[in-house]
């Protein structure tokens, strides 16, 4: 029994297919070659009038783990205002928009045509929790990026000159132990410095205790993931997040990569200058130029969207700096287990605020000025820049210049004078949207059977009814298929499926087991065997879906 989707306009840029009238044929949850004639058993899905895309992939969205739960705790008002619609068995009795419940997260994502989402800040000590939550998210494949770069074990190794191989072994051990699929660095060395009462740490500043610069930590981990063959390069939340003038740091970081690939996440928060009488300006042009000139750099934007949200970050140094502008006035900070930290600060971005309005414009400038869509991934850094449910709106801002200009007219006047957004005429094409929301994230994460519609791919397929209002179009697809089964029809969730969890398991020297046993015993106060997450603990015994490493 096969399913044939026929009559639609197919956008599959990973396979060079752009706006082609092609059939997509599905068998056993995977896409197969479409050249055979339709069999008698074919179920036909008529896609006429539809644009056919692979399932959407969000590679940076805070959907699970301790800090998200702290966000839920603080956002009771948001939770009450956005209950899941009552839909019989499809309702998980949850809700919330800025920090939605697991069930709501899966349903809302799949309602927009997304089939995979990645939690980009799994703290080792909290990894088991993050996986338990991810396992409770329906209709989405998930994966976690492990936060390293502030962990005392690593910093001590680097400081004591243990050598790259030891670092590689440690990184490999930690990835497997935490069942994560990439390495994230948050404010390299900075979170650790804050634990020693350091309040700022720039790229080439020496941190307390270990005497390491963020640059050195970054380079060491870049080399480690490259040598281990982890597909996604270091996922970097750089130094000085949100600090006016941090564009210098970001440019220096791009220049500090020593040729290793690097992903700069939520780069919007790292693209601020100090020009103008308010000492806050857009650095988007310089950043975009640097990204354009450095093909080994990729970015996601972390677009901010106006409205209430909550920011959740491992970067307690930055969050402590910002907690005074929390709205509502409450926030939670936490130092975590010699691994990292977290800070959860509710925010309300207002278009009447000069800073917020300019942040909004800077994000869009970056989207529009970085030329190669394969190196840009569409994110709001959910929920930090805004809830992921705003993606259809964001897509329209990118695809529709008059719509964008109309919004520009509404923002803080002085901010308007500080952005070049009005001069930018670029509009994203459907092909480019397919790249930034599907093909490109799959490629950078090493997901060979996701993000495209070629034979062998998982049958995660979305049919959007073509309409000029791109926000309406991307908000409510006609059909979403997860592994070949229809989970969303006309924007409504009609079935719940278990997702999978991606992980990488690069090999490590058994000696590292011994070293870490001792470290956990003596410093952490937890047995390393209890820190490590067994395959059987993932997805109720399903185990992880391993992503191939290519050393």
């Amino acid at each position: 029994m096969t399913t044939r989707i026929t009559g639609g306009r197919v956008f599959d840029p990973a396979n060079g297919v752009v706006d082609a009238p092609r059939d997509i044929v599905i068998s056993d949850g995977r896409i197969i070659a479409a050249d055979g004639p339709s069999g008698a058993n074919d179920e036909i899905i008529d896609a006429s009038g539809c644009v056919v895309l692979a399932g959407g992939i969000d590679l940076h969205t805070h959907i699970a783990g301790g800090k998200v739960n702290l966000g839920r705790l603080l956002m009771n008002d948001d939770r009450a205002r956005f209950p899941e619609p009552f839909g019989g068995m499809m309702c998980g009795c949850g809700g919330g928009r800025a920090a939605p419940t697991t069930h709501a997260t899966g349903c809302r994502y799949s309602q927009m045509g997304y089939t995979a989402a990645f939690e980009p800040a799994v703290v080792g000590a909290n990894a088991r929790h993050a996986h338990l939550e991810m396992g409770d998210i329906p209709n989405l494949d998930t994966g976690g990026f492990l936060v390293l770069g502030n962990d005392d074990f690593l910093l001590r190794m680097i400081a004591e000159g243990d050598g790259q191989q030891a670092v590689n072994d440690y990184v490999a051990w930690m990835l497997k132990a935490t069942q994560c699929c990439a390495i994230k660095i948050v404010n390299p060395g900075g979170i650790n410095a804050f634990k020693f009462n350091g309040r700022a740490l720039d790229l080439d500043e020496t941190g307390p205790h270990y005497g390491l610069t963020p640059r050195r930590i970054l380079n060491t981990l870049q080399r480690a993931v490259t040598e281990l063959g982890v597909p996604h390069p270091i996922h970097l939340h750089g130094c000085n997040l949100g600090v006016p003038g941090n564009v210098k740091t970001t440019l220096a970081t791009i220049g500090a990569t020593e040729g290793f690939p690097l992903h700069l996440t939520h780069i919007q928060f790292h693209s601020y200058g100090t020009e103008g009488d308010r000492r806050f300006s857009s650095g988007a042009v310089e950043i975009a130029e640097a990204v354009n000139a450095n093909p080994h750099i990729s970015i996601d934007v972390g677009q901010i969207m106006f409205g209430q949200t909550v920011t959740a970050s491992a970067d307690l140094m930055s969050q402590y700096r910002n907690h005074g502008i929390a709205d509502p006035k409450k926030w939670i900070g936490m130092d975590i287990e010699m691994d990292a930290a977290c800070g959860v600060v509710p925010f309300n971005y207002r278009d009447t605020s000069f800073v917020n309005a300019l942040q909004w414009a800077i994000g869009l400038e970056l989207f529009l000025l970085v030329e190669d869509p394969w190196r840009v991934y569409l994110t709001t850094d959910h929920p930090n820049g805004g809830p992921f449910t705003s993606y259809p709106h964001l897509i329209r801002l990118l695809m529709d210049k008059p719509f964008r200009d109309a919004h520009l007219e509404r923002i803080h006047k002085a901010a308007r004078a500080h952005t070049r957004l009005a001069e930018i005429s670029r509009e994203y094409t459907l092909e480019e949207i397919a790249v930034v929301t599907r093909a490109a994230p799959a490629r950078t994460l090493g997901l060979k059977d996701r993000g495209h519609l070629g034979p062998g791919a998982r049958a995660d397929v979305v049919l959007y009814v073509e309409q000029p209002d791109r926000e309406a179009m991307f908000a409510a697809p006609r059909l979403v298929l997860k592994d070949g089964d229809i989970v969303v029809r006309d924007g409504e969730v009609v079935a719940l499926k278990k997702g999978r969890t991606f992980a990488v398991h690069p090999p490590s020297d058994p000696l590292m087991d011994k070293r870490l046993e001792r470290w956990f015993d003596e410093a952490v106060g937890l047995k390393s065997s209890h820190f490590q997450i067994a395959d059987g603990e993932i997805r109720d015994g399903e185990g992880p879906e391993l992503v191939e490493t290519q050393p």
Partner: protein
Amino acid sequence: MSGYRLKLRAPLDARLDLTGITPAALAGLSSDAVARKDVFLGAQRVALGELFEVSSGASDALVVSGDPRLDGVGADLGAGEILVEGPVGADAGARMTGGRLVVRGDAGDGLAAGLVAGRIEVAGDAGAGLGSALPGERLGMRGGVVQVGGNAGLRLAERLRGGLVLVAGDAGAGAATDLIAGTVAIAGRLGPDAGRGMRRGSLLLAQAPASLAPGFADTGSHDLVALLLMARRVPELAALFGGGVSGRAQRFAGNRLVGGEGEILLLQ
């Protein structure tokens, strides 16, 4: 007249949540449509008509028969009037932004929690946490007026942020805990441990308290023009204290432990 009358068919044996059943929500609906409205009985949705006889009332007010398990009466009320002929349960008038709620009986816990504006009158006693903050919220009742004819329970006006609360009877333990601003007047006795964590605001008393939470300074007796002003601008306040507010009061300021500058005024 456009108001509805909801008459309970039988006393409730589980808690019934009437949140959202307001004159505005019923305006323009046929009585059949009113009877089909969903409410929560225990943890389950039931139609209003299963529990109530729905009929047209004699006024614009929504008239409801009372029951101590009837929760959320007048919650989210924005305009219009709700009259309860008997007691209500928890969270009556919670989050109200306007209108008037009259309860001809006792009220349960959380009366006027998160109240923004409007008037609430309760003929009998009120439960714990009158005028307090909703779960997870920093601020309690922000405005409006609440009049209680009987006693108030524990933690009266906890985290109160504004508005006026008048209690003709006694107040339980922990009154004015973490009170932020606003005015609370108690004609009866004040329970123990009042004013813990109090930041600002006024607690007006007719009877000397047996004790207060630690952290108050006795600033002595004063003639306070503000009391004269309040007594004239708020006739209910003057009435609560028998009409004779002299302006003279002993003033306890605090709570010093939290850097607070609230006041507990013993009227003389």
